[in-house]
């Protein structure tokens, strides 16, 4: 893996964490309202997958989509402004946290009705396939979403017509308060794709490198014209389902185990900063991993503690600037709302 890409991914993960924690703070202060679903714990999925994508690829996401938008290059300032409901937000203050859109960056929206991402992505895939373009669609969804009819209906069509869709399941094991074994007869989500003969695999969604590689391979298959692919990323959310949910249904030991041992940001730092593992870290990962760590370090170059600190300071400043921008931005008016509703009317006066 090239050092540049590694550093970019690490930077995006740090940005993702800082952005979301700052959004939580803004919510507590009353600057953000409504439903706010945050991403800490799941960064490796969005970052790994989207760094494997090309700018011409499309992204369709859920209500837990701030980080997908950020990684896609939607400026933190316009994402934060949308969370604040301002006119300068990427959806003009109409959509809010759950409905980020950025046409220019082919960010095709955050959808808040579970299961909506499947048909939208499949439709975009249809248009790409019909025009024989070298593009793909990335479709994000949670483990809970696969029990919605649209999942099965869309996977069938995508496979039937060999549509260029990469289905990415962010399996955080919960559908709000219902743990996966209580909502799904088959808890290995990737196996569901077999029913539609879509190549599928399950990867460690806490490890950005693994996710990135899986996405790269899948996208290569898609671009070769082989139809849809499916990746299940096993991950975990560190916070409640949304800011309204304390998440108290989850066993404390489960949460602690994930936070301590599987924090994807910490893993990414360890991977990027492979030049400086402590003696204990080396002892902890064991022999083979030391070799691979050393290998990736050798091939990928490295990053110093000072560099990491600088990176962290940089993303913190970027997020603060985003908050400043959002807070100073004007509110949209009713005329703006009407204009958004009538955006396709082309000035035609009806009544």
């Amino acid at each position, binding site marked *: 893996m090239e050092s540049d890409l590694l550093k970019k991914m690490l930077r995006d993960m740090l940005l993702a964490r800082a952005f979301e924690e700052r959004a939580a703070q803004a919510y507590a202060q009353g600057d953000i*309202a*409504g*439903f706010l679903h945050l991403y800490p714990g799941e960064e490796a999925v969005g970052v790994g997958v989207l760094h494997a994508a090309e700018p011409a690829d499309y992204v369709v996401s859920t209500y837990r989509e701030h980080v997908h938008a950020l990684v896609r290059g939607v400026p933190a300032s316009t994402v934060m402004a*949308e969370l604040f*409901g*301002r006119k300068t937000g990427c*959806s003009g*203050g*109409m*959509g*809010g*946290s*759950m*409905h980020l859109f950025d046409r220019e960056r082919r960010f095709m929206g955050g*959808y*808040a*009705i*579970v*299961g909506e991402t499947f048909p939208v992505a499949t439709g975009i895939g249809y248009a790409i396939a019909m025009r024989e373009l070298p593009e793909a669609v990335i479709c994000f969804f949670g483990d*809970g*979403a696969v*029990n*919605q*009819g649209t999942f099965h209906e869309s996977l069938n069509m995508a496979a039937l017509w060999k549509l260029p869709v990469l289905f990415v399941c962010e399996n955080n094991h919960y*559908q*709000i*308060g*219902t743990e996966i074994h*209580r*909502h*799904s007869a088959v808890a290995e989500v990737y196996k569901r794709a077999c029913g539609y003969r879509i190549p599928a695999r399950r990867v460690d969604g806490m490890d950005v490198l693994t996710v990135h590689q899986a996405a790269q391979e899948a996208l290569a298959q898609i671009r070769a014209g082989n139809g849809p692919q499916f990746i299940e990323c096993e991950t975990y959310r560190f916070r409640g389902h949304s800011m309204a949910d304390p998440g108290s*249904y989850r066993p404390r030991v489960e949460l602690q185990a994930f936070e301590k041992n599987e924090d994807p940001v910490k893993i990414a730092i360890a991977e990027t900063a492979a030049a400086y593992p402590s003696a204990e870290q080396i002892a902890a990962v064991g022999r083979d991993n030391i070799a691979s760590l050393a290998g990736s370090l050798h091939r990928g170059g490295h990053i110093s503690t000072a560099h990491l600190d600088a990176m962290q300071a940089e993303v913190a400043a970027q997020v603060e600037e985003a908050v400043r921008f959002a807070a100073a931005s004007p*509110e*949209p*008016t*009713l005329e703006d*709302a*009407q204009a958004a*509703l009538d955006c396709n009317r082309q000035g035609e006066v009806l009544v």
Partner: protein
Amino acid sequence: MAEAIFYWQALNRALDTRMAADESIVVLGEDVGLYGGSYRVTEGLYAKYGEWRVRDTPISEGSFTGLGVGAAMVGLRPVVEIMTINFALLALDAIINMAAKIPFMSGGQFPMPLVVRMPGGVAKQLAAQHSQRLEQTLMNVPGLRIAVPATPQDAYWQLCQAISSDEPIVLLEHELLYFSKGELDESRPPPPMHRAELCRPGRNLTIVTYSRMRDLALKAAMQLAETGIEAEVIDLRSLRPIDWDCCVASLEKTHRLLIVEEDSGFAGAGAEISAGLTERCFAILDAPPRRVAAEELPIAYNAALEAASIPQVADVVRASQQLCRS
């Protein structure tokens, strides 16, 4: 004995009371069991009645509502909770094509003791997809009955009645009402489920409303009283059928009709109320009926736009004053 409790507690009490009395009642929905329900309505029931009677479902609205239909055909009395009305769009086939039609198309062979409860309305900055009001869609379906309780007492009464009924009944609850408090007296005999309530007497105009707008109308009526206008306020409590008699009796006194609804006006509940009362009262109305309704816009996330999109007390006061002048 009356006690002040939350709206969600009244619903919880209704479920608990009925479930204790009748083993065929089952509750189904997302996070209704272990979690206790998004608005706490099913709190404690899972522990008390077990998983067969309080079932946490996958996110499969179309099919778990349809499952409720099937179970109702063979004697269970399912109470399906759709987490919010916004997701009921995925269950409309089960509600409209199945629940409302099976008793009819079977030539009257099957009971349909199904209750579908759902929170809806405009809450607080939940944006366009989570702020829907779908009463118009459901009102247009022969075979369905729709209750819209606005107080804990009505929530308790109407949920108990809906569970006891063999007809499919949709209970539209309002997201902002769950944590409102009111008196509940379980021993009071309930009025019929579809009976409207005259909740404030007046003589200058009749305000017909339902659900959360009841509170708004009552507040407006208090302000109007200070300016010398006495508004009579009617809470419909049921949108299908509508208690026309109660409204007609009021209009015979006031001769002026104002309808307040949280939904957009176009082809909405207010349009039906207006048409129904114009047909019945044309000759005695001193002015055309008026509607205070939401803007013809999806609900924006932005707080100020959200507030500007739905009726506020001041809008009701202004419209009442204009109506009384005309």
